[in-house]
């Protein structure tokens, strides 16, 4: 079953913060986050593993709540380059890295 992301879309001014959520109804082994710009391939941001800690990438960090099967992506002091669609990909235990991608969150950063 496809994970649900929220919000569906968000518009930010440069320098503002945003949080994107990803929820699954299944027990998860890992959560992957990708960003896709219009007409381009998805680009990897980070992976969070069950039992792992919060991971960071520059001003983008994420958390993984195993009990709630939820992950959140935190974008701090957003830049114009952060614009794009963000997808979480969830991996269930025992599925050999098969990812099910979420519904996507469209982020637009403006001046």
């Amino acid at each position, binding site marked *: 079953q496809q994970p649900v992301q929220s919000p569906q879309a968000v518009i930010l001014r440069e320098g503002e913060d945003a949080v994107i959520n990803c929820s699954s109804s299944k027990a998860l082994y*890992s959560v992957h986050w990708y960003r896709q710009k219009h007409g381009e391939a998805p680009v*990897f941001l980070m992976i969070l593993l069950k039992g792992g800690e919060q991971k960071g990438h520059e001003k983008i960090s994420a958390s993984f709540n195993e009990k709630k099967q939820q992950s959140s992506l935190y974008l701090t002091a957003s830049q114009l380059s952060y614009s794009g669609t963000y997808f979480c990909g969830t991996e269930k235990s025992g599925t050999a890295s098969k990812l099910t991608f979420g519904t996507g969150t469209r982020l637009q950063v403006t001046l």
Partner: protein
Amino acid sequence: EAGVAQSPRYKIIEKRQSVAFWCNPISGHATLYWYQQILGQGPKLLIQFQNNGVVDDSQLPKDRFSAERLKGVDSTLKIQPAKLEDSAVYLCASSPGIAGYNEQFFGPGTRLTVL
């Protein structure tokens, strides 16, 4: 290091025709994935290979789609015959291993339009 290569980048065909896509993964990557991404949606896994063996093809419409990965390197995805609903971007991705902590590297995709 060279990324994942795909060809063609664009393809327009009429329904009931056949089409094939090619993917060359990053050198040394054991796992190869084919995804279908319909406009406005997230990528949907069609098939996953580990070397030249199929790990998961549960979402591959096997009556019309087929894929192979000869010698555990390049891969081709074929659709025969195509339907209107097959219009999508077909993404190929590769990763070093099969474990969940491996990131997937995506190619530029092939945009298929079925008329």
